[in-house]
């Protein structure tokens, strides 16, 4: 029998190893799997390469993972924001690496990694510093840059609804990077607000087919990151 639902956050993430490449869903706080991230802080795996659009806010979630010195390198499109203090400080001190990628290129590289496409050409970043050192090529009179698919050892993803096959539904703009990160990891670990019976999700509306998911853990009432930031909470608490 196929049952991808595991009993605890700890069980879900306990094989994440030092040096792993980890994708973390979310655009800002929307879709960020904060409970999985906090459990990864407890777990302590270090020297991680993290692929995520941002670098977190305040001192919780992804920012706390970085602050806890578990992240060697960030691959992202927008590493600063109103409430991001941790990454800028470590970056200025040379304590963390940054690979800056245009947001659409980041999304397409993740999708390519999941779809078995090793490399593709894109017009984004041509003639800019972000294309320096990269191969360019002209198609139909326009210049494009060669970009490579990314794969991860683990993806940590937040969704709304899951079943035991790992079929997923998301909530509004919290969908963002979730579906493509599910595709691109050897082990995709999902925290779901609700877990429903097989067949309860209409096969026409499944967003992430279960084939892309290895583990599901039930987190019925995930924390609201912006509230924690407003309260200046720090993880571990």
């Amino acid at each position, binding site marked *: 029998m196929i049952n991808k639902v595991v009993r605890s956050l700890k069980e879900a993430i306990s094989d994440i190893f030092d040096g792993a490449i980890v994708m973390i869903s979310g*655009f*800002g*706080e*929307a*879709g960020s799997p904060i409970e999985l991230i906090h459990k990864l802080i407890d777990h302590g795996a270090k020297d991680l390469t993290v692929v995520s*659009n941002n670098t977190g806010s305040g001192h919780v979630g992804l920012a706390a993972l970085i602050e806890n010195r578990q992240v060697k390198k960030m691959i992202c*499109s*927008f*590493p*600063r*924001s*109103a409430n991001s203090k941790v*990454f*800028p400080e470590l*970056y*200025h001190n040379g304590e963390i690496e*940054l690979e*800056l*990628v*245009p*947001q*659409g*290129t*980041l*999304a*397409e590289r*993740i*999708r390519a990694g999941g779809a078995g496409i090793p490399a593709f050409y*894109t*017009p*984004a*970043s*041509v*003639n*800019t*510093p*972000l294309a320096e050192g990269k191969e360019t090529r002209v198609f139909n009179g326009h210049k494009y840059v060669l970009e490579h698919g990314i794969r991860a050892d683990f993806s940590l993803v937040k969704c709304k609804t899951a079943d035991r096959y790992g079929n997923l539904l*998301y*909530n*509004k*703009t*919290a*969908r*963002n*990077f*979730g*579906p*493509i990160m599910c595709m691109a990891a050897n082990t995709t670990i999902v925290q779901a607000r609700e877990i429903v019976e097989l067949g309860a999700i209409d096969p026409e509306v499944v*967003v992430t087919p279960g084939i892309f998911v290895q583990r599901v853990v039930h987190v019925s009432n995930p924390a*609201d*990151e*912006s509230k924690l930031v407003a309260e200046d909470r720090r993880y571990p608490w």
Partner: protein
Amino acid sequence: MVTDEKKIGWEMNEVAQKVALDIPDGSYVNLGIGIPELVAGYVPEGREVIYHTENGLLGMGPAPQAGEEDPELINAGKKYVTAIPGACFFHHADSFSMIRGGHIDYCVLGALQISENGDLANWSTGEPKAIPAVGGAMDLIAGVKNIFVISQHTTKTGDPKIIKQCSYPLTGKEVVNRIYTNLAIIDVTNDGLVVRELAPGVTFDYLQSKTEARLKEK
């Protein structure tokens, strides 16, 4: 001088209204963070414009009523928004397929610098201490059919933003189609920068004095 300029030109709300007037009925539009967001407030009566936000929503509506904010319904600037009837949600790869594939008709962006051939710099000042952050800007200017810039005509210190050659790192080369500032509306053409409209009280010579790049009268 800065004060002067602000007095004689348009307010940015008026500039946003000018932009909105130039976006046809039925357009798909992506608005950058900040001043570009003002454009959404001025869609002329009878026109229907659909807003795309790159974090996965087509049919973005105005900010929600107080108390109805949903942290999982936000725009690219991470502000609370709503979804109109006929909206749809999608993932990031699909969202940037819309952008890169040429499906978005208009993008309205801010600018740090614009060169006379339409180069745009709007993501980094290139200072060594700055944290570089690009977001979706490079994808947008590479993929969207019409790129409109909306900006103050000069920097906070009164320096020209419309210059011969950008000194900041580029977002894209030869990409800007039209520039809307508090002083004028300027088209980027094969013949150079052509002034389309001057704000009330602004003369061509005054505009040129605030612009490093060579301007042409219409």
